[in-house]
């Protein structure tokens, strides 16, 4: 997938910006608050129907304006036009794909696979289990629609089950306990499917993370992701094992009115040379791992989706030393098209720019050359 062009109207600080992109690297250069990240935001928005900063529409709308618009032209085997339009009058956001209105996000997700690297990625290795689950789930979901729908169903079961556990805490009725048995059965079936797919994914993804890591930090360091199933099992999790574990904690679940067992509580452990990154990793190792995760995601999706994902890198060189930065710069030459924001070229002499690459200067919400 290649992004041909993007236009923003009254989006963030941009009044009216149109950009034609290069098929290779697109360096988006500008100071803080000048509107360079908004270009990535607009692209991500079109690819996912979601805003990666979780901003509300009235924050996205340029101050004092009535409506905003984001338009993108994508090219694969055919040309596809995506458009987001928001009007403050009816506070409604519309998504149009080739002129047709789209109402479900699942109709867009996966059509334009996208990989986004941001400074917030430090959460991937330093944050809690939920940050890592979100990453893993989103990579699988983008390449496996069945996984996405299973995950949506699983989350629905979790919500229903927690409401029922609440009722049971107040009143221990027999018919509610039988109902809980029914929810348990569905939880176990759906949950086991999620665990199996995740497990299979991690096995495959580990090859990609090794490859990516070695490009940024060649030689001595060996990364690997571990997935302790159901909060710590090393054996294969079958439906009957899951059911057994669930039954053991039933009393505790009712007492605390919470879902205590299942893949929604699992964590993924990032290891470098057989030690846990989270506890023992150096600053450089963390940064390398975070960056490698995104490159691995890119190449994994490229293989699975059968089309090259759109690669967005927001301030990737920000906290990196020159050695790692120049390796990443070399590595970027292998991805095809990418969008990279940087504050200033003069600080990035290591950047290996080729003649096809584009430089897009952004200042005060306007595009220069």
């Amino acid at each position, binding site marked *: 997938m290649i992004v041909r062009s993007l236009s923003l109207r009254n989006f963030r600080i941009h009044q009216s910006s149109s950009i034609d992109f290069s098929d290779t690297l697109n360096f988006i250069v500008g100071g803080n608050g000048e509107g360079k990240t908004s270009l990535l935001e607009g692209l991500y928005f079109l690819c996912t129907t979601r805003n990666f900063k979780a901003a509300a529409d009235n924050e996205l709308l340029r101050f004092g304006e009535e409506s905003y618009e984001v338009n993108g032209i994508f090219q694969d085997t055919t040309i596809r036009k995506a458009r987001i339009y928001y009007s403050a009058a009816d506070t409604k956001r519309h998504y149009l794909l080739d002129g047709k209105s789209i109402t479900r996000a699942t109709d867009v997700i996966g059509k334009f696979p996208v990989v986004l690297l941001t400074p917030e990625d430090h959460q991937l290795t330093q944050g809690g289990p939920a940050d890592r689950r979100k990453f893993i789930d989103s990579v699988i979901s983008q390449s496996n629609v069945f996984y996405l*729908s299973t995950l949506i*169903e699983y989350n*629905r*079961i979790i*919500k*229903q*089950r927690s*409401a*029922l556990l*609440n*009722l049971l805490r107040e009143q221990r009725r027999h*018919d*509610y306990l*039988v*109902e809980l*048995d*029914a*929810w348990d*059965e*569905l939880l176990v079936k759906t949950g086991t499917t999620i665990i199996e797919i995740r497990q299979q994914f991690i096995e495959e993804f580990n090859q990609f993370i090794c490859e990516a890591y070695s490009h940024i930090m060649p030689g001595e360091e060996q990364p690997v992701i571990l997935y302790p199933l159901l909060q710590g099992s090393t054996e294969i999790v079958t439906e009957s094992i899951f059911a057994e574990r669930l039954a053991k904690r039933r009393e505790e679940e009712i007492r605390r009115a919470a879902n205590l067992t299942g893949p929604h509580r699992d964590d993924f452990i990032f290891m470098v040379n057989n030690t846990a990154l989270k506890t023992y990793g150096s600053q450089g190792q963390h940064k390398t791992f975070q960056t490698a995760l995104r490159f691995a995601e890119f190449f994994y999706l490229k293989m699975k989706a059968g089309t090259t994902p759109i690669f967005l890198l927001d301030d990737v060189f920000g906290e990196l030393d020159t050695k790692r930065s120049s390796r990443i710069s070399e590595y970027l030459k292998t991805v095809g098209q990418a969008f990279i924001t940087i504050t200033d070229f003069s600080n990035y002499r290591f950047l290996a720019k080729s003649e096809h690459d584009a430089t897009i200067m952004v200042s005060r919400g306007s595009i220069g050359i």
Partner: protein
Amino acid sequence: MIIPEPLQLAIEEFSKFPGIGKKTAQRLALFLLRRHTDDVNRFIAAIEGLKENLHQCKTCYNITSSEYCEICSSPKRDHATLCVVEDASDIFAIERSNQFNGKYHVLGGVLSPLSGVGPESLKVKELLERLKSEDVHEVILALNPNTEGETTALYINKLLRGLPIKVTRIARGLPIGGDLEFSDEATIGRAVIGRVEYT
């Protein structure tokens, strides 16, 4: 522009209908306003008749104008097979497929703790009573293949365990997350024929 109150009231009532937004409600209200008085009176009578002349069948909770519905009163229907559905509209859908000649039982919903629907709000007790007094050999659970429908089917299956009754679940020929009501006859027909027994 200020909308006159009688019109406003009508718009508000229309917008309470499922799938009807503000704009459509306004169109419907204005449409009625332009109609001939006789037409409007017929419309009013039809709506009044809904509530006055229709109620739930005393046996299966289908919609009927008499005490017992047409299906329950028919001697041609197979008494030994009972099809459990969420809503009376599901009966219409299954009847259109012409693949089923047994009787029905309408639950009046599916289990959903989030919306406050528990076993006590469904006609589950009534189903168990029927199974005691009627000579039923097979119960078909024809609930929508979504999360709540699936759980309700599992729940009823648990209650019927131990009874000398075969319990089947209509095959998942239906699209996941789909509604029986909106599925075409052929799909529903196939799903009823290909039902599977609970183990």
